[in-house]
């Protein structure tokens, strides 16, 4: 059974990673990236690495999305002012 959990977690990670790459609009991509981070966290716990899972969740849920969104915001504003 634990093997099945592993396979499912791995499959979710692969699907989400591909999805992150294929989402071309950065703002939408950021949301998918957050979701991807959650799947990574689950996979790491399944692989018996709670320290790494904790790290991934800490970085991937708030800090990285916030940086990405703020960057997009700064860039959008730039473009808005130009037009």
């Amino acid at each position, binding site marked *: *059974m*634990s093997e*099945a*959990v592993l396979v*499912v*977690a791995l499959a*979710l990670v692969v*699907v*989400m990673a591909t*999805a992150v790459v294929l*989402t071309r609009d950065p*703002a*939408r991509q*950021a*949301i*998918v990236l*957050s*979701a991807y981070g*959650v*799947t990574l*966290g*689950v996979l790491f*716990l*399944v692989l*018996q690495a*709670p320290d790494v*899972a*904790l790290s991934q*969740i*800490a970085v991937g*849920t*708030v800090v990285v*999305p*916030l940086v990405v*969104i703020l960057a*997009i*915001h700064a860039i*959008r504003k730039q473009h808005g002012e130009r037009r």
Partner: protein
Amino acid sequence: MMTAALVLLVAAVGPALLTTLWGDPADRLTGLILAGPTATMVLLLLSAAYHRPAYLDVALVLGLLSFAGSLVYARFIGRTL
């Protein structure tokens, strides 16, 4: 426990994640908001299944931060998103 975790992973986390893949940002955000707590539940169940109370810390942090993570997007929806 393990079975419950598996079922939850397939039946709840999976669909929530898939919701983030299509639609406009608000729809995607719904998926993300659902994915946080359901994944937390999965982690709780896994912790029990592996007989490792130490893993609960991970679930605790995911529970706390996934809420904050959803807020990040909620804050910007209609503005940048």
